[in-house]
């Protein structure tokens, strides 16, 4: 009989029509610029560079090892090394990037750069409101735009940032222990050398 299926569909749309007035499950729209859904903790969008302390230029963790540049599947990262070195958080002299660009119009947010970074430098941001009047320039983020503080990282991904900090504390401890061991070794060697020297001095004195 013609019309039964149509009537069934009409009942369904009527249910949705009335449902959208009282049922938030049906009316799922969020009116974006005024209301926003709080970002989920895991949410990620594009990468950014972390810096420690207050000055982004001296605190930048990146040492321009270029691993992320090589691993990036759509190749949206461009790095150029700087000739000048600067000390990192362990006090070692490290390279630093002169240019670090990410083309967010190419980036697909796969997080591979984050996983391969051995210096905990590049992490995922959850900011999605990139809009520009220019097709190329405003979506090509440069080093100063990418650099964001560790505090900001803590504010967007608290658990992950905590883990990252722990890794770095561990690294520092390891480094300190290493340094200590090295220093002890050095001191020991010095002592030995000194005692040897003293010994040989004594020997020569004896001979005379």
């Amino acid at each position: 009989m013609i019309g039964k299926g149509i009537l069934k569909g009409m009942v369904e749309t009527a249910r949705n029509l009335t449902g959208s007035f009282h049922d938030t499950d049906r009316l799922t729209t969020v009116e974006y610029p005024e209301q926003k859904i709080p970002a989920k903790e895991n949410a990620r969008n594009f990468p950014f560079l972390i810096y420690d302390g207050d000055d982004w230029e001296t605190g930048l963790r990146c040492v321009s090892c270029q691993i992320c540049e090589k691993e990036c599947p759509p190749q949206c990262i461009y790095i150029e090394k700087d000739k000048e070195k600067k000390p990192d958080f362990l006090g070692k002299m490290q390279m630093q990037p002169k240019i670090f660009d990410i083309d967010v119009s190419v980036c697909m947010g796969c997080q591979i750069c984050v996983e391969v970074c051995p210096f905990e430098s590049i992490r995922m941001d959850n900011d999605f409101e990139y809009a520009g009047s220019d097709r190329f320039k405003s979506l090509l983020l440069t080093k100063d735009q990418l650099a964001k503080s560790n505090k900001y990282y803590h504010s967007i991904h608290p658990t992950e940032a905590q883990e990252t900090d722990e890794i770095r504390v561990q690294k520092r401890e390891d480094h300190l222990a290493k340094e200590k061991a090295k220093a002890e070794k050095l001191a020991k060697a010095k002592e030995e050398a000194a005692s040897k020297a003293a010994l040989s001095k004594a020997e020569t004195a004896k001979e005379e």
Partner: protein
Amino acid sequence: MWFEELLIAIKHYLVLQMPGSLQPVGSAFLSCLPIMTSFGGLFALATLLERKMLGRIQNRYGPNRVGPGGLLQPVADGIKMLTKEDIVPKNADHLIHFLAPLGLLVSAMLGLSVIPFGHRLIALDIETGILFFFAVGAASELAIFMAGWGSRNKYALLGALRAIAQMISYEIPLILSALSVLMVVGSLSLSDVVQAQSGGIHTWHIFTPWGFLGCILFLISTLAEINRSPFDIPEAESELIAGHMTEYSGFKYALFFMAEGVAMFAMCALTATLFLGGYHAPFPILSFIPGPVWLFGKLTSLVLLFIWIRGTMPRLRADQLMEFAWKFMLPMSVVNLIAAGIWVALDGGVAAWISSGLLNFVAYFGWSRILSQASRFSPRTYRYAEEAGVSE
């Protein structure tokens, strides 16, 4: 009645203020002015209502940015349309291209002139009101063809031909189903049709077997006649370009939509007049509320029904649309005419109810069964593959 009398008195007063030679023209002008202004404004509101309601049907908000709750959206749309460039193709027939949207709008507006909005509240009270209505309605086909022809664009021409084929096909069941009412009332005048339903809700034509089927057939034909979903083949926006409106832009394009909207109001008003008691209240107690209010209420509910249908139905294919018109609508409206004839012959009453109701019922179910078998579509059940290859 008081409201209608008041309006008529105001009009007579204003006409009498005019110099004698101008009085006939002035009277006509004063009759037209309220219709044209109110339906123009109503059309703007209807577009907003349509978008809002479709949004709600689809679990969206609909337009709510311009003005409080989106109320100024039609104004914004109008400004946008007015400020757009009006492009006329170089080789187009400029005069016809220009006249087509006007002709469509005028024919839609003229249809409203014979609708009785209240007691004695009718712009053009002629004996053959309904004939006039369908005659000017047919002029809209001419306007659509002018649009297709004048554009000098093959897609526009093909779209116009499709639109005309559809409108002419559906005009037959439209008129035949209206004819059942005229048979029973025995007059072509719409005032008489309304007067025949003045006794309250039980005298409305929709609550008779022939009126019920006639009303449904009339509404379906109306949908096709004003190119609304599911019969919006002429401008199937997701499948075709805009049919006969391909070469129109700016305010001429808006005029097409306005004509469509006004035609929808005219058709809904005619449906309300023919089947839903026109400007009469459903219960005589409620007749202190003015007639125009009732008519507009009925009209609005019909418009809402159209929007509801639009939100539910997929679109038919052009050949299926024709098939539906000629194989289903036409036979059913003829059967309905016979049922109305039985009603007249038996002069109402229980016997007429049973016989004409039975006729319509049997015809509808039998014919729809035969048709759906002939067109080979039906709900299906599906089998499942099992590991051993045994179907369930």
